[in-house]
């Protein structure tokens, strides 16, 4: 991939105390805005979630929601932080990977703000932002990261200028696997209670382990067969729903934990970071905590408010990029639906 970033001149003219980065996140069902100072302080973070009436995310409907919600969320963040749009130094946005219509909506808002306020724009890789906010909030410096969400299941660690992907799903993402099963079981997505949390609550009351497919290939894993087997059993109705939720979680989480442990043993790093929407799951946290301890590594979990997609992580990663010479001119700010994290250079890590 050719380098699109250009060195930004005149950076040293800004005083640190007066520099604010506004981050816009819109890769999937959440429209989020966050505000970070250049010193790594998160001053505000707000979002509006699109809740489908049925089924999963409809990209066009989600984008429509984002366009309608943008104004209110932006205003909320500025007022929470006690600044006006005139105080903004930098606009960062989620440039990919994600759903096209959703990404384009956020990118449009970002371009307009950047042009209108005459401040630089910086496009941020969404996956890297999940890692960076985790590091900022937990103090982890060089972790093996398990990033698990509705769209991603990635084990990565930094090496030679980039985050490298050590393991990932060969098919569907962990959050997707859990969500589809939850919907099949008739659970409903409500504001403040994502499907994954509803499933977690049911699983906590499960007692009997039903054996399901367990597919680990090298450091990669496959979840689609597990999902098919679990939904088939669900529709047969021979097991209690709680037991199936429990069994699904135990199998899926054991798989991601196993590959994370492999990456940890392989890289011999001394920190583990759990980030992304599924990071809020307590059972997953406890499993990763165990492997970290066994390898004398420190275990870190991103705080709940920064686990799901959020604008603060985009703002902070925007700061890191900009202060290391990266800006994205508007004419090069097209969204990148399939922007893998190992394609991005991260000059802020030595």
């Amino acid at each position, binding site marked *: 991939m050719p380098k699109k970033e250009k060195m930004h001149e005149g950076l040293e003219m800004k005083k640190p105390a007066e520099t604010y980065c506004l981050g816009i996140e819109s890769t999937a069902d959440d429209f989020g805005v966050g505000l970070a100072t250049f010193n790594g302080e998160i001053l505000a973070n707000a979002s509006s979630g699109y809740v489908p009436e049925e089924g999963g995310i409809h990209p066009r409907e989600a984008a429509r929601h984002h366009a309608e919600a943008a104004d209110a969320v932006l205003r909320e963040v500025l007022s929470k932080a006690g600044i006006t749009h005139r105080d903004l130094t930098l606009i960062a946005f989620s440039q990919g990977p994600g759903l096209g219509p959703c990404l384009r909506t956020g990118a449009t808002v970002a371009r307009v703000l950047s042009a209108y306020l005459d401040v630089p724009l910086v496009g941020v890789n969404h996956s890297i932002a999940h890692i960076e906010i985790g590091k900022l909030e937990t103090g982890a410096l060089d972790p093996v990261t398990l990033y698990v969400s509705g769209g991603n299941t990635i084990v990565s660690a930094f*090496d030679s200028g980039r985050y490298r992907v050590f393991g990932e799903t060969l098919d569907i993402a962990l959050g997707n696997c859990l969500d589809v099963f939850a919907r099949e079981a008739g659970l409903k997505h409500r504001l403040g209670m994502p499907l994954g949390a509803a499933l977690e609550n049911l699983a906590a009351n499960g007692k009997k382990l039903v054996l399901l497919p367990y597919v680990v290939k090298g450091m990669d894993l496959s979840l689609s067969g597990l999902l098919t087997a679990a939904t088939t059993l669900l529709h047969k109705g021979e097991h209690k729903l709680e037991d199936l939720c429990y069994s699904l979680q135990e*199998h899926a989480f054991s798989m991601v934990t196993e590959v994370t442990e492999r990456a940890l043993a392989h890289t011999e790093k001394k920190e583990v970071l759990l980030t992304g929407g599924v990071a809020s799951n307590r059972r997953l946290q406890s499993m990763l905590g165990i492997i970290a301890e066994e390898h004398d590594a420190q275990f870190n979990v991103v705080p709940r408010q920064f686990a799901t997609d959020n604008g603060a992580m985009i703002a902070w990663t925007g700061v890191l990029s900009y202060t290391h010479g990266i800006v994205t001119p508007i004419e090069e700010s097209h969204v990148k639906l399939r922007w893998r994290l190992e394609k991005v250079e991260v000059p802020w890590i030595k």
Partner: protein
Amino acid sequence: MDKIDSQKLIKKGAEASLYLTDWHEKKVVIKARLPKKYRPKELDEKIRNYRTAHEPQLMHEAKKAGVPTPTIFLVDMKNAEITMEFVKGKQVKQLLGMISKKERQELCIKIGELVGKIHKHGVIHGDLTTSNMILGIEGKIFLVDFGLGEKNTELEARGVDLHLMKRALQSTHCQFAEECFEAVLKGYSTVMGGAEVEKVFDKIREIERRGRYVAERKK
């Protein structure tokens, strides 16, 4: 378990611990798949038993295909332990960065030949990282750790095996990944030959496109 404590731990991997010890006047390695506390006991036992039973079979099959693997002396299903020959040598992982480009190429061609041999014989390794390849002191390359392997002759399995190897090279040896994988495929081709090789290569490309956020992915 008591006997293990008195032996020398040489590697604490993710999946198993390796202990070096003497057994009937031979240097041997005991590969112990210790219980994993993070997963439920029932699932843990299923996984450990399955892998302990299958690994020696696959290593034996690989030998039949002409691929050096450590000789198995003992399989203890109760404790999920395998006692095998200790192979003196260096992990390919440690070597790749220390040798010349030409040597690296030759080494990778040889590795490709070995992978071709096991595939042709119907064995999938399942975890072709450079940590699982040992260059012995006599110059032979040993493949170890067949715990995630399987007996399979399908294109899909062969493609995934090689795809994972490419990924492992990219994450661990980013500077040489491309040249190394090219050499591996070269060696692989000489063993597999002709039409079969083209089908496997097509499969690798298909598997890559299936990945998440791959630019070449078809709609």
